């Protein structure tokens, strides 16, 4: 796994970061668990997942999304280029037929 991918994932996390307000707050892990419980489709679980593992999964998920996006982008570029080549070819053919 290349370092850029990891770095881009970490940057993604940082963009999501907020400065926590001062004062008493629940521990990060318990809060994360609470959020997971609150979201509609998340299963309940007794276990405190721990922030390290969860954040690693966030990064891996971001990397997978990034990779998928790159594949999609590559496909679109390829399709655009193929379209361009076709138009160029058709234009050249048209020129041939019209040239006496």
């Amino acid at each position, binding site marked *: 796994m290349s370092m850029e991918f990891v770095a881009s994932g970490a940057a993604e996390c940082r963009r*999501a*970061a907020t400065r926590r307000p001062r004062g008493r707050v629940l521990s990060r892990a318990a809060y994360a668990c609470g959020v997971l419980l609150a979201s509609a489709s998340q*299963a309940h*679980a007794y276990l405190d997942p721990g922030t390290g*593992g969860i954040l690693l999964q*966030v990064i891996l998920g971001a990397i997978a999304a990034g990779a998928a996006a790159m594949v999609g982008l590559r496909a679109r570029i390829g399709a655009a280029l193929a379209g361009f080549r076709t138009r160029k070819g058709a234009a050249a053919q048209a020129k041939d037929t019209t040239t006496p």
Partner: protein
Amino acid sequence: MTAVLFDPASYRDRRGRVFEHQGRIFRSVSHEAAVDLAWLEREGILADLIADGRLVRSWRAETAPEIRDGSHAAAVLEHERLAFISYPYEWPFTALKTAALFHLDLHRDALERGASLADASAYNVQFVGARPLFIDVLSLRRYHDGEYWLGHQQFLDQFLNPLLLCARLGIGAQAMYRGSPEGIATSVLARLLSFRHKLSPRLFLNVVLPAWLQRMAARKTIDAAQAVRRRPLPKRSYVALLAGLRRTIETLKPRSASLSAWSDYASEHSYAAAEMDSKRRFITDYAARAQPRLLVDLGCNTGSYTAAALAAGAGSAIGIESDPDAADQAFRRAEAERLAFLPLVMDAADPSPAQGWRSLERRSFAARARFDGMMALAFAHHLAIGRNIPLDQLVEFLVGLAPNGVIEFVPKADPQLQRLLRLREDIFGDYAVENFAALLARSARIVRQETVSASGRVLYWYDRSSGSAP
């Protein structure tokens, strides 16, 4: 109605509790858990895993006994009772590795069927011989799209990190794991790794990075909850994570930093071949006639005599071996030959204590030791001479382990004992075969004895059950 005994280790998950009643093992299932359970049954997941031999045999209890604490369980399951419970901090390296791969495969197969595991506790895996078995039915849940692997950190702490301690640092993790039953924390392992280790991509991803992320979260630099809310985990990432861990663990091998005095034992022994044969014949005779259902082999080393006892008629065996390398070799033998044999890394002079919540959660070795037979070959002198255990206490301890068994007495004239005494003052005036035999005869009947070496080693078969002849 006899009392219901709740298992003191079963308290974390409010969706169910394990209890014992009239020697049988049951699990109460809450209304919430019963929904998932019914779904698992409908999908055939439970039945398939049980048929595979991967999940402990379980069934709905027909007549559910009264549950004393007043919780109105929606259902009660009964589980097949296991003959012996062991803990991850007692397992040799290869056993923990096998358990880790087993857990990951189970999780991946569950995901394929739309299910998931709620946690990744190493204590949810038990061994029957050298074969892993999953025992926590309620850990299986329905998978919800986008959910995270909540057991990830627990998996690292309880499976991966102890393996890495041995594979990368050459440290037998058992002693440290026993002192830290919730697992070896990633932050601790990160501190122990050298810079060179940290450059390895696998260690960076699975140790350094999670430790760093944990520190950043603790310093409030990252808000984990926010990150999680924005991005559900795609299933293919979940599966890829499990697959990546599996690839990492597959490659791990134990690295023995210490000069193991015992793994070469089988080749470098002070026995002639004929002497080994008479020892083996004695063991075979004992096992064939006493037929112990559950045998304990103290100082089992690489398990060659344990295998002989099993072949001759012992039902199953637990090995106790203080050298992690020898125990690991014994486990690999048990795996390869499919023996009903589980070797454990343990010091007989300091067996696993009771620990955990209220010191009841993880039972002591003594509390779990319900053996039908025992073997202590070339072992007693390690306690008597090596650990200065008085002979009378030693004999009492040995015969207390099982109603019958075989104990080998090694005299001072033997080369192995000469080696132990070379740099020490001989304070063991009473260490002599006559005293040993007299102490043994005080607690039990000597069924048979035989001198098996030119140096004067004697095997004793004792039996302390009243009036029974094998």
